[in-house]
């Protein structure tokens, strides 16, 4: 077949240019360590990559949410444990009190009860490092437990009812804070301590009022005001509080379990997805470098052939 001089050169050149383009692309892939340089290089693979990236992203966000939830719950749990210990100790002390004790002993116990009262109020009004009250539900800038301490009162006076100023327990997820730890799964991270502190209301269930009243009555110099009923009321209030606390502790524990489970499964999912993603994106270095060497050799051969044939002309012999 006849070959024109022009097409002879253009076809050799086309071959060389193609090899150069392939080598340039391989260089870029190797330099970046990535197989897919642009979505059009592998549309199907890119689709998969996008799906995996999205999923990893969403799961990682849930892990961050879980961490926040855990922090809140751990903080709450620590405070609740402190309250429990305090209540148990106070209950033990109450067992030692008798209305028939002499004044100096009764005054001592009054101080103990008053101190317990104060500490319980402080613990109930705990705020987190940002200054938000953790037992107020949604009303994080409002002090949850309000009670005017009447002790010491001489002569003894009646202590008023305590008030809870936070948001109540409502239908989930209202009024107490929930955090989403996985798709559609919410855990409660704030609990209503009022179910412990005001289990009913009135002496025997209103913890702060009952303890305050007991301290007032114990400190009475006449010794005639304090009765065994006062002590029994205090014990009852503490028992009710411990029950309420128990419910909260169980809820916190359950939430922490849920978070732990969700964390484990999400971390595993993220791991699997990440592996798949790496497999899709990562360049097989060995294959790439081998291909590069092959194409380099081919390019050199093409260039050498071009150099040899370009000088072939009949005019050289005329």
């Amino acid at each position, binding site marked *: 077949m*006849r070959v*024109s001089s022009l*097409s002879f050169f253009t076809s050799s050149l*086309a071959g060389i240019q193609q090899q150069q383009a392939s080598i340039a692309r391989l260089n870029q892939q190797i330099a970046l360590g990535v197989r897919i340089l642009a979505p059009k290089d592998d549309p199907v693979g890119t689709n998969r990559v996008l799906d995996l990236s999205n999923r990893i992203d969403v799961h990682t966000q849930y892990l961050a949410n879980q961490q926040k939830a855990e922090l809140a719950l751990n903080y709450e749990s620590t405070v609740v444990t402190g309250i429990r210990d305090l209540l148990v100790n106070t209950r033990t002390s109450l067992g030692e009190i008798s209305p028939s004790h002499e004044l100096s002993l009764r005054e001592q116990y009054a101080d103990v009860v008053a101190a317990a009262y104060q500490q319980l109020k402080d613990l109930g009004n705990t705020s987190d490092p940002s200054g938000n009250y953790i037992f107020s539900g949604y009303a994080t800038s409002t002090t949850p437990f309000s009670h005017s301490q009447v002790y010491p009162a001489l002569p003894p006076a009646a202590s008023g009812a305590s008030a809870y100023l936070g948001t109540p327990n409502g239908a989930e997820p209202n009024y107490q804070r*929930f955090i989403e730890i996985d798709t559609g799964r919410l855990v409660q991270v704030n609990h209503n301590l009022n179910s412990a502190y005001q289990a009913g209301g009135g002496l025997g269930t209103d913890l702060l009022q009952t303890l305050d009243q007991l301290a007032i009555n114990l400190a009475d110099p006449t010794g005639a005001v304090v009765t065994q009923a006062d002590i029994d009321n205090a014990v009852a209030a503490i028992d009710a509080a411990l029950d309420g606390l128990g419910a909260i502790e169980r809820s916190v524990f359950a939430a922490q379990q849920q978070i732990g489970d969700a964390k484990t499964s999400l971390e595993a999912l993220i791991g699997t997805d990440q592996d798949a993603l790496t497999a899709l994106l990562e360049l097989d270095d060995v294959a790439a470098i081998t291909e590069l060497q092959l194409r380099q050799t081919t390019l050199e051969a093409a260039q050498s052939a071009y150099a040899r044939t370009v000088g072939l002309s009949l005019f050289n012999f005329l």
Partner: protein
Amino acid sequence: MASGIFGVSLLGLYAAQSAIRTTEHNIANANTPGYHRQQVNFTTPAPTYTTTGFFGNGVNVSSVTRVFNQFLDNELLLSQGQLARYQAYAAYAGQIDITLGDQDSGLSSALSSFFGAVNEVANDPTSLAAREAMLSTGRNLAGRLNNLAKVLDDTRKTINQEIGSIASQVNSYARQIAVLNDKIASTEALNGQPANDLRDQREQLAAEINKLINVSVITQSDGSYNLYVGSGQPLVVGVTANPLSAVSDPVDPLQQVLAVSIGGTAIQLDTALVTGGRIGGLLALRDDILVPAQQDLGRIGVSLAQSFNAQHALGFDLNGAAGGDFFASAASLIRQPSAYTSNSGDEVLTATLVDSNLLTSSEYDLIYNGAGSYTLVRLSDGASTTGAIGAVTTIGGVAQGFTLAEDGNAASNAAAGDRWRLRLTSGAALSFSVAVSDPAAIAAASSATGVPGDNSNAVALAQLQTSAQLSNSTATYQAVYNQLIGRTANLASEADISQTAYETLSQQAFEAQQSFSGVNLDEEAANLIIFQQAYQAAARALDIASSLFDEILAVAR
């Protein structure tokens, strides 16, 4: 015509000279684009009758012709035209593909950062820092959408400019062809011989035009060489070149199309028939990738604005006020229907967003049938519905997510046959923005005053990321974006493959054409030797004939 022993050799010399001259011409033009090698055609003139036999009368150069094969040249023309089309398409498609899919410029990272910040507000609604982060990632998201839309819009403008410059380039080639038509006709009339080099030039110009826009070349037995574009509009007829120009598309004034001016009237070229050359690639890219991408990005913006704002409005901010629009309202992002410039009526129609969840990325055509009846056609699949203006936005029983209305002005009315093009979401991504600037105004709470710790609305806002808010509740914002990337990647990849295929086809067509019509320098070198020897032989013969004459003269002395 010379005869006799001198005459015959003279003719031989002349023939050899012509052949050498043509060979020199071939050698000189070995690299000229569009050159077809020329050859001298020899014939013998009529012999002289004598009683002792017929004596030949030398050699005639009957013509100089091109070695030309119409079929091979056509194949080359076609494949180069298609190559130019796919080169243009692939170049732009590759740019858009990488812009959309890139980690840093694409939408995905901005979208996920924003929802990450929404989650942080849900985790800690009283934190002003978390709220500030939500505002700044929101602005970042808006900025990213704006940038992507701007890249697409800039591409739209560049394509418009290219159409204009291609039109003027084609016009300059066409004028040159018209001039050549005149020259060739008049010079060929002089001696009836083909004007080889002029024809080469003319065909080369036609090939250049074909790389810009596909043309049909019609040659006729009377020698006319005419070019037609589109559905048969004449570009060059004889010595008349009809100029192309870029005009506003009657369908959408933001884009340009080509029109050819015949006798002073501009006739728009049917886009469906402009399929080859650079322009074919640009128009196809605009319809296949650019406009759908603008619509899709816009749809994401509209849906994000509407659904996020709707949830935000259900909540209360840190000051106890009900949530306002977080993003600029979705209604403000909708692009109004654009009346075809060919309409005879002057009715103005407005489109109102109803439910972004039901919006599709398709364009629509609205046609007025007269007597208050309109037909809405969904261009992606051709489905349509007919009815009054208020009822025509449900196709196949499925509401399309928007409503239409006339402007209520009795003075402006539609004429039967008037049309509007609806590209409702194509401008949304460009105008998308955050409307809130005060972090306290983020409505994280579901209940009013005094409850700063209420995060339940923020939780609901965060859940929008994973809930299907688009495409009739089948896709999330990210999913629609991924579909856009995927579709663009597929088209760009196909274009690349086609480009490679046509590079090979063009190369093969070129080699085939060249093997027939191209100059081979070695062949020309051999020809030089042949004709040089022929010349030498003829000169020698002349010398001998001359010496014969001297003999005769010597005898007479």
